């Protein structure tokens, strides 16, 4: 259900942005609200973490897992692009 909601909202935002329905002065103010909304959300996420004693206790373990996952995602992504790069750049005939 959330997926559909997110999709509708991002498309609605995209439509408004594409059609330039907002003036630059409003857009500048939106940047401020965007940062504010993001910081508030991250604060709430922090509260969620702080309320969970097991997370606080296993912070070091989670940190180690995170580094492993990040490393794997980067290595696999690079391999993935490597598999198609010759096809993309060969047709374009430059950039390499």
């Amino acid at each position, binding site marked *: 259900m959330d997926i559909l909601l997110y999709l509708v909202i991002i498309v609605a935002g995209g*439509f408004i942005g594409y059609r330039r329905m907002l003036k630059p002065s409003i857009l500048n103010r939106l940047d401020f609200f965007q940062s504010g909304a993001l910081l508030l959300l991250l*604060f709430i996420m922090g509260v969620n973490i702080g309320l969970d004693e097991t997370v606080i206790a296993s912070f070091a373990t989670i940190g180690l897992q995170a580094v492993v996952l990040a490393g*794997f995602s980067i290595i696999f992504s690079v391999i993935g692009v490597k598999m198609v790069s010759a096809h993309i750049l060969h047709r374009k005939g430059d950039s390499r």
Partner: protein
Amino acid sequence: MTIAIFIAVALGIGAGILVIPPTIIPHMGSLITFGLCLLLFFVGIDVGRQGDLLKKIREMGFRILLVPFMVALGSVLGTMAGGLLLHIPWYQAGAVGAGFGWYSFSAIELSKHSAQLGTLAFITNISREVMALVSIPFVARYIGKLESIAPAGATSMDVTLPIISRSTDGNVAIIAFITGVVLTAIVPVLVPFLMTFG
């Protein structure tokens, strides 16, 4: 902004430990969903403002969309493989990887499921961004210019774009930007989708 992000999270953790009563937990989910909707609306506007993106893609050939596709596939399969080693359920590991370095969205969305998973997504995706900043010049030099977009994931449209641009050339920088936009649009769908397997 980076410092502000860390301060916001640290203050939240402090408030969670010291001030806020655990009875508030059941109400957190809907509050987070509302906040995320607001955030996504703004991101949508930002993406829409890049009006001629479709024209740029048409000029360069639709095959350049293979780059975001392979980055997405590699990120999700990579974290699933890493999750296998760490004994993390495949769909949770995949959902963490589907953040593509966009730590704010993936971490906040996954913190609705558990604080532990949200924390893992937050640190994983921040680590990815930091590793990307360090590895992009290396990948560009020794593996390939187009491949240097891969570590960046969704951040290739903003944070890491200047480094990709400096390490490669104008054409690759445009592909990097398009890759970042496409991946950013995929994250809000793919992260909750993978969690439906739980």
